[in-house]
């Protein structure tokens, strides 16, 4: 079974790098991006299977980034990260095509199970 390609987008470099390393230890292929433009560049260049996207990132609104990714390739699944209980933007994200959302701080088991589910859905769909 090939590795799932994950793109992790978060403006907190420390957070992104630590989480990326943990995911790599769990046998995922991970890229990180710290802002929206970088993220979109990697989506184009690398074609990730699953994008983990912080809703509050500089450069472009998280929701806008989500919409752009889904427009570019609807088969890429997006899991939203949110730092606080911003119910409104979570709802907006879900209606804009996000697969799931997860609250910060992240439980690694919960995150990997959601990534796997997203990947499974991709393969079935």
């Amino acid at each position, binding site marked *: 079974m090939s590795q799932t390609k994950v793109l992790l987008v978060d403006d*907190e470099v*420390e*957070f992104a790098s*630590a*989480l990326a*390393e*943990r995911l790599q*230890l769990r046998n995922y292929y991970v890229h990180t991006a710290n802002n929206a433009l970088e993220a979109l560049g990697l989506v184009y260049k690398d074609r990730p299977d699953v994008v983990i996207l912080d809703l*509050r*990132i*500089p450069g472009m*609104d998280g929701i806008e980034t989500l919409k752009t990714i889904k427009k570019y390739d609807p088969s890429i699944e997006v899991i939203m990260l949110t*730092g*606080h*209980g*911003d119910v409104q933007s979570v709802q907006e994200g879900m209606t804009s095509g996000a697969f799931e959302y997860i609250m*910060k*701080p*992240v439980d*690694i088991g919960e995150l990997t199970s959601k990534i796997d589910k997203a990947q499974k859905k991709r393969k079935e769909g």
Partner: protein
Amino acid sequence: MTENNKPSKKDKKSFLYSLMNLLRLNALFNTSGSDRYKGLKIRIVLLDAVLSLIPLFIVVTISYFWFQQILKDDFRNQLKWEIENTKQSIEYFLDERLSTLRFITSTYTYEELSDQKKLNDVFIKIKKEFPGIVDFGVIDADGIQRSYAGPYRLQGVDYSNQNWFNEIVIRSSYISDVFMGYRKIPHFAIAVKKEIPEKRTFWVLRVTIDVETLKKYATSINLRENDDAFIVNHNGILQTTSRSHGNVLETFKNFTAVPEEKTSLKDFNHSKDDYGIYGYAYIKNVPWIFVSVIKSTPYAKIPNIFRNELFYITVLSILFSVAVTFMLTQTVVNRIKKSDQEREVAISEIEHSSKMASVGRLAAGVAHEINNPLAIINEKAGLMKDILEGSENLEKNKDKFLVLLNGIFDSVARCRTVTHRLLGFSRRMDISHDLTDINDAIKEVIGFIEKEMLYRNIKLVLNFKENLPRVITDKGQIQQVFLNIINNAVDAVEEGGQIEVSSDIKDINTIRVLIKDNGVGIPKDKLKHIFEPFYTTKEKDKGTGLGLSISYGIMQKLGGMILVESEVYKGTNFIIEIPVAAKAVKGGGL
């Protein structure tokens, strides 16, 4: 509640106004608590009672006097009718006597009646029919009584020099005043003249009648206690004995001339106890006036039955109207009370929801600020755990662990900053006097919101004057003012907008902070409201409408001020002037 008692201009409602003032209806708006409703109740009851009872009293009084007048008129008509009846019966009595005499003079000749025996026969017959006749006499044209029937010896008496005889020579009949005459008892005379045309002479038949008979007719009118009825002649000499106005042939003191044609009634009021009505009626063909004195004037005192009824009706009406007033007042006051309570509840709900909104905003901000470092700690600790679980050789990973642990400490420090800042904001109700560097205070505030500005691509320009004098003021409160106004600026600008914060020295006593944005601006009609509490143009749940009013209050308390200038689509400038030494005001809530 504001003072409602301002003197009004002269207006049409000034009557109502003064009535309200009289009852101090206005004043009750200034009292408070349950006393206020009690006072309101009492005054409404009073006002209503006055308004409803005045017409009641007017109606009762009018109907009382109206009824009295009706009684009076009724009584006087009744009295008049009785007087006329009595007068007519006296006239009838006299007419009857005259007719009888005429009948006798037509039936018998002078010669027959001159015969003493014949006259006696006739006298006895007549006396049987008409009691009260004292005697009969036949007088010739020379005034000599030719024959006489009666209890006295009066045959041959010469009447030719007496007035009545001279009168009868001219007229056909004559009725005299009452007189004593030869007999020394009061009586009056009726005489009828019989002409003998063929002999060109005449004779006279004369009867005298006892006054007692006349009196019987006079007093046939319905008399009550203290009333009186009698006959006087045109000179006021009593013709019959009265109950309380003198004996026969005495003078009636209170006699006044009245018109002859009709019965007249005259009120008199000689003293407090001596009042009533005189009734006068002229008797036809005689120089007599029938007089009645009525002192029992029942209308002067309205009958008790009516008075009692009126009293009961009045009392019932008062009770009814008072009861209705009470019920009405109860309802009205309860309504007012209820609506007051509802208003209070509504206000406290607004206060609560605005408090909740600001708490919610704060909570969301804090959650975001703390969650990010927490997430970093979570990941770094998780990574360390992952490494520990997957590797036997700890020494190899020592440097990596140190890096990760430093990252964790950094994040903890970030959390600490947030919590400290939060504590700084919570101490803000009492004025404290801190030696404050305004530039530092602004920087701390900006630390709170720069993330938000960053996300929204808002450009922040700081233009601080170096070496500002430090001011003695309440740092926490002044920071809240900065936060409120910068927050508003953030809300006002579009994405990619610009906010400029600058500080300067205005004069030796004042520092001036300018917060300038290039946002939507505030229209002129809204500009004058922005410092009012609960005035907001933001969406529901986003603004409480309290921020600027609280800021305004704080600046007043600290002896400074907030000025605003704005132009639509160009931006808004808030100028905050802070005194170098805060006003020595005792602390207190906003």
